[in-house]
């Protein structure tokens, strides 16, 4: 990332093991050793409202209860589906959380391997396993369209301030887009439009730390 000035210029890049001088309480992405705070991941440190956090730049999606995500079916059981959400473990979707009336052993009729859904994380436990639900708000099965995968830490960049970036892409490509917190994005529309929206999003993902991204995307979409 050379040349351009970076939006991250006022934040500091820290690497695993780096000592962080602070009086704040420890948050995430850090560990304590001999009473001092060190970073445990590659990321940017932020010292806000009494807590020191290191926001990791890379890594797999870490599910949180209430996150809206896109999940892809990886496995079907007699009464559950195992869904891939891009985290360390596959997530479980129980038939009672699906909103469908599923006869025992007939799960694949409703969701088979490769099918995608728009769902919400309903439970995360300490051992790292998690469940998702289809029974909330606008959760549903996704028909047609494409799914692309980006780094989950770049999701806020794709959305932009108050959704500025995403509405820019939506308006210019006339596509339907749904962005999961896990970095999975569903795009539906005409073939060329999907390709353009995908290109825009992949550009954002690749150049998430550079400034003047909105202008660059505007130019890309005008073509």
């Amino acid at each position, binding site marked *: 990332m050379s040349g351009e000035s*970076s939006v991250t210029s006022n934040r500091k*890049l820290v*690497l*695993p*093991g780096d000592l962080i001088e602070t009086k704040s309480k420890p948050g995430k992405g850090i560990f304590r050793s001999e009473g001092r705070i060190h970073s445990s*991941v590659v990321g940017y440190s932020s010292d806000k409202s009494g807590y020191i956090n290191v926001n990791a730049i890379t890594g797999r999606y870490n599910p949180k209860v209430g996150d809206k995500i896109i999940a892809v079916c990886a496995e079907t059981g007699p009464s559950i589906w195992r869904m891939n959400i891009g985290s*360390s*473990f596959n997530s479980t979707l129980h038939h009672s959380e699906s909103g469908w009336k599923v006869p025992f052993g007939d799960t694949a009729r409703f969701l088979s391997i490769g099918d995608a859904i728009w769902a919400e994380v309903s439970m995360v436990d300490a051992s*790292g396993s998690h469940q998702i639900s289809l029974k909330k708000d606008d959760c549903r099965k996704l028909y047609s369209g494409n799914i692309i995968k980006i780094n989950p830490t770049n999701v806020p960049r794709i959305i932009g301030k108050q959704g500025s970036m995403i509405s820019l892409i939506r308006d210019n490509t006339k596509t339907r887009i749904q962005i999961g917190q896990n970095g999975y994005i569903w795009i539906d529309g005409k073939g060329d439009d999907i390709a353009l929206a995908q290109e825009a999003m992949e550009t954002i993902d690749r150049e998430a*730390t550079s400034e003047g991204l909105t202008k660059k995307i505007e130019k890309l979409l005008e073509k």
Partner: protein
Amino acid sequence: MAGQTDMELIKNGIRKDGRKPDELREIKIVAGVLDNADGSCYLEWGNNKVYAGVFGPMECHPRHKQKADRAIVQARYTMAPFSVNDRKRPGLDRRSTEISYIVSQAFEKVVMVEDFPKASIRVDMQVVEAHAGTRCAALTAASVALADAGIPMIDMIPSCASGKINDVVVLDLNKEEDNYGQADLPLAIIPSTGEVVLLQLDGHLTPDEFELAMDLATSGCMDLYKKMRDALENSYGGKK
């Protein structure tokens, strides 16, 4: 280790390849080179060329290897058939099994394994060109790849060897020095604490020489650590 040799590996404090006794070979590290891995690294160390890729944390297979309270690190070190002069038979052998095992052990010391119960973190290291010191090169590359994968850990671990040639303790043996020298001592440390996570010794050293070799390898590791940090900062835009 031949032990005795007529070959003059060091003369007037200058080695055959022109290095001083306490000098490392040229090192180039690039992070994030593989698209399909969670984290990756390419490393050139003299004539050594190594790729490392990290996959995970993910569900551990086979199931019986799962630990209910923590993750395991499954490292795999392989040498390409074309990496050495005589074609190497592909696949696992006694040597690569050993290196895979010690690298796993070293990483379980620094990775915060208790954050990911039942998970496995796969670390694959592929040597595409070998010229002595590949286990150190592979471990170093894997460290950078782990950081690139966003896996929480106490510190990255640099690894570097020292040894003895013509009765002189030197840093970072090359192929000739390794084959005709008297001792080889690979070392990996946690830079922030100075803890040793990997130490092997092949050949003979007196207690005094051992101390000297340890000091030399430790300072080599610290130099290497700076290069690893630069590689990550370059790839994440910390350096302009």
